[in-house]
């Protein structure tokens, strides 16, 4: 199975760009809109390796779209520096535009044109083919490519129908196909699945995964859907224009979430239980149930060494979503204050009465 017109392994680095330059490098990027009182993007830095799947995650208004607009050169940064494939987005804007493809948050197809006309418009703007007044007068190579595209999209003659008649999922797919025509080094997707139903979202992700596998294109995705970040190589969480957490999904989970063991005993036995736990080096605060920072292999060991009869045993393994909500919630609580990167464990212990644990992890004794 091949993707036909989808780009092969990215072209050799153009002359002038360092061969080993990361696909994206962002250093201290700042954007303050005119007449705004605070920065929409407030000094963010990150790096994306070639071929990686990078996710910029954050709530609405966190600065995701602003960041993408700057990286794709349609918006000037107020401060900081960004490079795409080693090229400066301000000084070499035109070269950068050739290197990037973008799926905008809002659909950017011309509804009055046909699918093919939208594709042709893009192809000519990117200098892939010279302009010609009609489909028939376009070069044979172009027509072959479009026919392959239509096959890829699972449409036949509909490619010659106005985009207005397409379904939401079809439009998104057409935009993706269009954005890959000029073989971009980096594909930016700004909340591409907003407003699509679940099956369509799934199809779109399968398609994108194939594109990534077969073309090696670096993918930069913004989303506020957490599950879309789970498959990423690297996730960067931003809020209020600042990076509040970064790492692989597994790292984020490990750093930001802590498995806990929740146990309780009958009221009469609680003092004994507390003493036993203290003997294991576990501080049991409050009147029970007791939430203990215990997870993984140690859970069984701890349970075995308790002889007090337990009335409740429950483990809690927070999802990445819990971690995300916690990060975003925390940075909202911090307000404008610096130092949001602190230790997360006290937050985890804060809401620990078991109410937020996932039900399938619970075992009632």
């Amino acid at each position: 199975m091949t993707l036909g017109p989808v780009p092969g392994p990215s072209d050799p680095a153009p002359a002038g760009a360092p061969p080993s330059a990361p696909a994206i490098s962002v250093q201290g990027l700042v954007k303050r809109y005119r007449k705004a009182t605070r920065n929409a993007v407030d000094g963010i830095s990150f790096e994306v390796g070639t071929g990686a799947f990078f996710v910029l995650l954050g709530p609405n208004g966190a600065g995701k779209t602003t960041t993408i607009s700057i990286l794709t050169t349609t918006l000037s940064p107020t401060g900081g520096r960004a490079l795409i494939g080693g090229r400066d987005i301000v000084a070499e804007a035109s070269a950068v535009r050739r290197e990037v493809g973008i799926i905008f948050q809002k659909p950017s197809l011309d509804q009055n044109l046909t699918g093919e006309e939208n594709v042709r418009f893009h192809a000519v703007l990117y200098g892939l083919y010279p302009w010609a007044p009609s489909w028939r007068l376009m070069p044979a190579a172009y027509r072959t490519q479009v026919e392959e595209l239509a096959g890829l999209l699972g449409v036949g003659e509909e490619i010659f129908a106005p985009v207005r008649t397409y379904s939401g999922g079809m439009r998104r797919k057409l935009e993706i196909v269009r954005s890959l025509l000029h073989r971009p080094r980096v594909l930016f997707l700004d909340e591409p699945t907003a407003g699509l139903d679940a099956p369509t979202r799934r199809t779109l992700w399968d398609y994108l995964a194939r594109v990534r596998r077969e073309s090696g294109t670096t993918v930069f995705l913004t989303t506020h859907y957490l599950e879309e970040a789970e498959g990423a190589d690297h996730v960067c969480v931003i809020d209020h224009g600042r990076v509040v957490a970064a790492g692989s999904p597994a790292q984020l989970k490990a750093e930001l979430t802590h498995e806990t063991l929740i146990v309780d005993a009958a009221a009469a036995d609680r003092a004994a239980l507390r003493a036993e736990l203290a003997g294991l080096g576990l501080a049991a605060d409050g009147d029970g149930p007791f939430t203990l920072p215990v997870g993984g292999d140690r859970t069984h060991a701890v349970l075995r060494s308790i002889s007090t009869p337990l009335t409740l045993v429950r483990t809690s393994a927070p999802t990445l979503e819990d971690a995300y909500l916690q990060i975003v919630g925390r940075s909202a609580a911090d307000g404008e204050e610096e130092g949001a990167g602190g230790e997360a464990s006290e937050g985890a212990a804060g809401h620990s009465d078991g109410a937020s644990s996932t039900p399938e992890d619970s075992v009632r004794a």
Partner: protein
Amino acid sequence: MRELSAILAIAHRDLTKLLRDRARILGDLAFPLILVAFLGPALKAGFGSPGGLDLQAYVFTGVLAQTVWQSAAIGVISLIADREEDFSQEIFVSPISRYSIIAGKILGESVVALPQALAILALGWVLGVPMTLAGVLALLPVILLIALFGGAFGVLVLSNLSSQRAANQVFTFIMLPQFFLAGVFNPLQGLPGYLDVLSRIAPLRYAVDLLRNTYSAFQPGSTPIAVADAGFNLVAVGALLVIFGGLGTWIFVRAERNR
């Protein structure tokens, strides 16, 4: 070559859209056709030919120039609507020069204005406005020049606007007064001082007058209906076209990125 291709693609898109939107073609034509069909003959019937001036031809030429000029100007301003529909993102993120984008838009909207001009010419002929084939052929390049001039004016207006709403609001202030200041259907001779000054500032005045120069040149023996001579009007239109287009694009491109 690549930039030229891109300019043609952008212009072609505007023409394609026009041809698919029959309601718009009729809507755009209604107003000028009403003026040419009703106002011109009515003025001629009521006032005769003061000083030998053919009032029907006067209104006809005025409306022809005004329609083409305004159509191109409003068409270019529609780049704002594109921005709100987010199609312009696709154009602005592409690796072509911002100047090519504007040039393509001006060219496209100028071509879009031509069918309207042809319809007005046809109606004038039907209504008996004196014209010759040579005269009509000579008018065509002038009409195209006026359309480009209107497009350039549109860029200057566009560069100072932030939304389609703002565009609709300023329309009344910048387009309507020019109907009168440019003398589309009223005489410009003997205007009171302040009106004379405003009239000379109105860019449309030079477009209307240049078209009348051309029209009169092919009506030997008739009373000339233009107020200035052709050379002056041609220089004025050419100079303003370059200034408006260049300055407007520069401001627009800057504003687009420095939000």
